[in-house]
């Protein structure tokens, strides 16, 4: 029996889909059988980021409406043996499925996969509530910006209410030099406001955008720091203790590592 992990943020455009694609790919590369589940109905993205758009025949709504079997809708990844995508519907909207149906689907997928990574729509409305209701764990993505942190905080509060066990934090698009100039919050500040465990920090990197456009998750490229960051996040999800990346040659990052490693 596998585990369902929802990737959520409140605010839109902070990197939920990018994080889902990369974490899912990294978990698959580490030998897990993984299903990416796109619940952003009407605004599907994950298929594009994975470069699988042209293979879609059935989608999540078809499965829910029993137009096809789950297996028929699952798209096998081009690169990873054990990685599958269940795409969202593009022509419907969020009201096409309810939380009971989604909980059923997630439970079915957990029978077949080690890991179900759920890409959640932005916002805190029904689409969010549905995506969260079937999850065992949650990852909250935020950028180090006030508005994004505010929304992440709201989401953490709602997750606590939904009884999803303690959510973990990914700080995305960090720009170390901007932090140094005082133009961006540092990771310590973000973590101290949100008061949840830090799962990882992903630098802002144009390679992420480029590889997203090419439909190749960056985590497949060995060298980039962002790829390394996503791989480390995947390892921490599996319970490994991995030190935080040094995003810049700065000693103080090393000094803070110990404190950040407090996650279970």
């Amino acid at each position, binding site marked *: 029996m596998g585990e369902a992990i929802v990737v959520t943020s409140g605010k839109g455009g902070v990197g939920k889909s990018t994080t889902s694609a990369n974490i899912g790919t990294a978990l698959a590369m580490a030998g897990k059988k993984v299903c990416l589940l796109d619940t952003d109905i009407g605004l599907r993205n994950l298929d594009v980021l994975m470069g699988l758009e042209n293979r879609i025949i059935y989608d999540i709504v078809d499965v829910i409406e029993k137009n096809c079997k789950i297996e028929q809708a699952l798209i096998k990844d081009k690169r990873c043996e054990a990685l599958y995508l269940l795409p969202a519907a593009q022509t419907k909207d969020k009201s096409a499925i309810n939380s009971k149906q989604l909980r059923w689907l997630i439970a079915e997928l957990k029978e077949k996969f080690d890991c179900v990574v759920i890409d959640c729509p932005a916002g805190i409305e029904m689409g969010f509530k549905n995506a969260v209701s079937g999850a065992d764990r949650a990852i909250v993505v935020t950028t180090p910006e006030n508005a994004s*942190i*505010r929304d992440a*905080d*709201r989401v953490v509060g709602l997750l606590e209410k939904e009884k999803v066990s303690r959510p973990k934090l990914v700080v995305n698009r960090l720009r170390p030099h901007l932090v140094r100039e005082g133009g961006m919050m540092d990771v310590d500040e973000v973590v101290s*406001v*949100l008061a949840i465990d830090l799962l990882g920090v992903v630098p802002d990197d144009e390679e992420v955008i480029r590889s997203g456009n090419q439909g190749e998750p960056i985590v497949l490229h060995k060298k980039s720091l962002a790829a390394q960051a996503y791989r480390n996040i995947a390892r921490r999800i599996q319970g490994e203790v991995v030190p935080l990346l040094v995003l810049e040659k700065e000693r103080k990052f090393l000094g803070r590592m110990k404190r950040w490693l407090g996650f279970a």
Partner: protein
Amino acid sequence: MGKVLRPGVTIKGTKDGLLFLLDESRPFSAILSELKYKLENASNLWDGPDTRVWIKLGNRQITREEEKEMRELFSARKNLIIHSIEAANGKPYLVDNRGIQMLAGTVRSGQVLEHRGDLLLLGDVNPGGNVRSTGSIFVLGALRGLAHAGGEGDESAIIAASSLHPTQLRIAEVVSRPPDEWDESETSGMNFAYLVNGQIAVDKMHQISRIRPDIHEWKDHRFKA
């Protein structure tokens, strides 16, 4: 869709006497003035034989002072004899005023922590989070959101925090919006906010016994010179 405003004080006659239902959702001060109005007017209604009165507070609990005020209003009508005051579900109708209640946890964006009496919060109040209390609020943590002390008009209520960086403070009816209204240098370290001359002021914690002499100052009496 216009909502019909329910009266704050509903009076019902029973065979044993009169039932006063006091709406729990409105400030008690508003209830009292409505009660005063109702008792003072329609006087012919009240000047009958002795009548027993049951007062129901709903989910509200009141302080001794509030009870005293309420009883005074009734004393204007000699024939009305208060038989009982009750809160819902068998709760005592008086707020437990002994000491201060302690709660732990983070008040996050969009969350509202409502409290009666003095509150000690062990945790942070994040931006977009909201703590309201009828008494004082003490935060052992960072206050970054909104705090409203003395929510029912208590102007002696204070707000203190280990780190006082709120988006807004309110005491009784007064609203203050830092940092445009205060000097940032004032807010480092343990500070508290209080009401003076209709404005919210912030001061260092060690000033509290000077500003609120009713809070007993602790002194070391062991070694007398």
